[in-house]
């Protein structure tokens, strides 16, 4: 078993554990196993890319956090008052670390399995709890060190040693604050929801977390243009509600020697609240929390009549689009699968979110830094900026291959046990279900963002882009290997092959180029629309001819 250096650090504190009546040798062994299991888990930050090598996944996720940490360094160099700067830094650290705790370490916080395994052995519950707490703290401190480390080092050189000491102390307080925040969040959720709902909520957090990271990267490069240089700040009452302000105040107080009542009060809050929360957490919350954990393993009973009538309605609705009954069945099956398969959602939804917001982000980037918003809006509405919807098309179309994988891929035997003549109905039905439920609504959403700028004149353009998207989807579908939906493991490699990626890129560039040259030539545009429509329709029609021998 590998020896973890973290454990050697904890060995230094073994005295405290012994004083508290913990069997340190046993606790150390439990921790060793837990850390080993951590190394084998694929972290949520990386889940969307699909990694083959599990052992490296953990280190890679630390690298990702480290990269985020390096981005935080940018805040130190911003030409802003120190108080605002530290507010931003602290705010970002609190936000990112709390998100990571919810997204990554829910398994640690919400572990109910360890009790049945450990407590049936001659190990007292104090030792088990100490191991759990230490494990959580190790995780928390690791993320904080990795994310805040770069700021700490750069701050040492830019602002001096005092800054370093101050930030270090603040980070310890922040970690207590975050620990309380995340456990309180879970505690709150457990009060109202049963296990499955809580897992859904955690899943959405993971999705949002991935999306925030993806979208965040788009803004980082332009962060300087967002900053208003002539900005004068005054401390307002609502700043007392911002935890980041509590932790930023001491910097202004100590480093700039600004003696201000508000700054003193804020600093005191920053000291008192986390200490109070630490005490509260260990005194009361943990016990209460553990008592409620049993809810996680309980099957919920729900009566949902509406679901049944809704399924009937959708079946009827889809029968107009799909004349084949089997396809209709697999269409709804795929929709149910996607909406309930959490690891699939974690891989899929951040991409869909990115597809929805990337054109918008590009527009915002155009607006920022110009003198007048009205001027740039009219500038945008006179140019063919709707062509940026092709980015959405690109991301959405490439996402269809994600449907092949599932955490429950072993359940795929059912396709063969059922009386299905041709797997074409499975594949095309599932594809149609995905396009109808996810891709089309996102596409319409993006189009809706552009309509205020262009008005009715946008209609032929979005129609053409839509048809091009369907064409690209069916091309990808026909060219990629015929894998049954949800039949491959999540770890079976990247979701999008390089060939499909490059092919889609070429396709989008060419069609967008063609679209661009035809934009003001309406007859040409209409002919183009008709041609794409005919080609797409023919390809869709002929795409279900797949035999069981073609399926891989």
């Amino acid at each position: 078993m590998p020896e973890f250096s973290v454990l050697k650090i904890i060995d230094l504190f073994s005295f405290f554990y012994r004083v508290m009546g913990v069997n340190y040798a046993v606790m150390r062994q439990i921790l060793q196993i837990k850390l080993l299991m951590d190394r084998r888990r694929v972290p949520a930050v990386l889940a969307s890319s699909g990694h083959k090598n599990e052992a490296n996944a953990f280190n890679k996720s630390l690298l990702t956090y480290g990269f985020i940490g390096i981005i935080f360094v940018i805040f130190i160099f911003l030409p802003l008052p120190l108080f605002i700067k530290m507010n931003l830094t602290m705010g970002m650290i609190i936000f990112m670390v709390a998100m990571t705790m919810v997204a990554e370490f829910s398994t640690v916080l919400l572990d109910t399995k360890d009790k049945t395994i450990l407590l049936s052995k001659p190990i007292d519950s104090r030792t088990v709890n100490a191991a759990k707490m230490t494990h959580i703290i190790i995780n928390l401190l690791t993320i904080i060190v990795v994310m805040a480390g770069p700021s700490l080092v750069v701050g040492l050189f830019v602002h001096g040693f005092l800054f370093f000491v101050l930030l270090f102390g603040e980070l310890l307080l922040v970690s207590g604050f975050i620990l309380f925040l995340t456990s309180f969040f879970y505690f709150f959720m457990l009060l109202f929801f049963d296990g499955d709902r809580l897992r859904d909520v955690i899943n959405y957090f993971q999705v949002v977390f991935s999306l925030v990271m993806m979208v965040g990267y788009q803004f980082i490069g332009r962060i300087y243009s967002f900053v208003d240089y002539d900005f004068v700040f005054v401390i307002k009452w609502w700043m007392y509600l911002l935890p980041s302000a509590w932790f930023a105040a001491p910097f202004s107080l100590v480093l700039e020697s600004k003696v201000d009542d508000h700054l003193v009060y804020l600093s005191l809050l920053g000291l008192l609240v986390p200490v109070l929360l630490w005490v509260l957490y260990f005194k009361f919350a943990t016990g209460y929390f553990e008592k409620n954990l049993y809810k996680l393993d309980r099957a919920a009973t729900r009566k949902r009549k509406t679901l049944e009538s809704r399924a009937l309605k959708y079946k009827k609705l889809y029968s107009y689009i799909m004349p084949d009954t089997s396809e209709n069945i697999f269409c709804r099956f795929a929709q149910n699968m996607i909406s309930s398969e959490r690891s699939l959602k974690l891989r899929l939804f951040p991409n869909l979110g990115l597809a929805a917001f990337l054109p918008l982000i590009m527009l915002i980037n155009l607006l920022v830094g110009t003198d007048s918003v009205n001027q740039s809006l009219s500038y945008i509405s006179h140019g063919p900026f709707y062509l940026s919807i092709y980015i959405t098309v690109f991301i959405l179309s490439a996402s269809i291959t994600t449907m092949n994988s599932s955490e429950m891929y072993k359940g795929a035997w059912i396709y063969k046990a059922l009386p299905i003549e041709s797997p074409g109905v499975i594949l095309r039905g599932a594809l149609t279900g995905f396009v109808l439920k996810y891709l089309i609504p996102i596409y319409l959403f993006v189009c809706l963002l552009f309509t205020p700028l262009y008005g009715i004149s946008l209609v032929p353009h979005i129609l053409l882009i839509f048809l091009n998207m369907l064409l690209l989807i069916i091309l990808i579908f026909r060219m990629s290997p015929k894998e049954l939906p949800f039949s491959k493991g999540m770890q079976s490699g990247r979701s999008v092959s390089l060939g499909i990626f490059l092919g889609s890129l070429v396709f989008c560039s060419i069609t967008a180029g063609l679209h661009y040259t035809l934009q003001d030539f309406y007859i040409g545009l209409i002919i183009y629309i008709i041609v794409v429509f005919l080609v797409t329709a023919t390809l869709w029609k002929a795409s279900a001819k797949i035999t069981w021998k073609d399926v891989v």
Partner: protein
Amino acid sequence: MSTEAVITIKDLKMSYGPKQVLKGINLEIYRGQVIGYIGPNGAGKSTTVKILLGLVDGYSGAISILGEDIDKGGVAYKRKIGYVPETVEIYDNLTAYEYLTFIGEVYGLDLKQVDDKAKKLMSLLGIEEVYHSRISSYSKGMKQKLLIISSVIHNPDILFLDEPLSGLDANSVMIVKEILAELVALGKTIFYSSHIMDVVEKISSRIILINDGQIVADGSFVELKEKSKQGSLEQIFNQLTGFNKHKEIAHEFITELQGV
């Protein structure tokens, strides 16, 4: 009992790589029989069932089910068979409602009809309150009940059951056994794989013992008993699979424990 063969297997052979798991199985199964299909771990029981269901390819030999040669690629016969797999690997992120209506619809039932039927069957087995919960949140027994329902929801003529009673409580076991008895009375055929010899002994009208890819015994319990001069199916099983060292192994096991 009629003499109409519902399943005919001729010289079925199957290899996984260099390892031959089925070394020529010949079998005729008649309507209304309850076949107790038994054998040690790795003898080829599950493989036989998977081949019959069309889950596994690459075998040699001829198999016909309900008069249809399954190698011809037709799937019509699958409408008339139901299957309870041994390992509970299903798409358990779905709810029972989603899973059962999906399966029922593929078997050609109407959505409304299968919904009502599934709900009724779930409530008869006492698990109607989790109809709209994820299957992954079920206990072992609930999952087993769901699998049983999913295997019979289309009213099949042949049932393949692999350890169908595992995880069920004593009362549910009685219900399921009674259901099986009534199905047989209706002329259905049941192919029952299990390691629990007592149950196989009681419910089977014909017992087939497979060892190392070959059939080593075939007949009713009474016939097997006469042939082998043993009192219980368990003893027959031990005798025919050539296993008589259970006492020595158990003893060694205990000695090892005591040594600590």
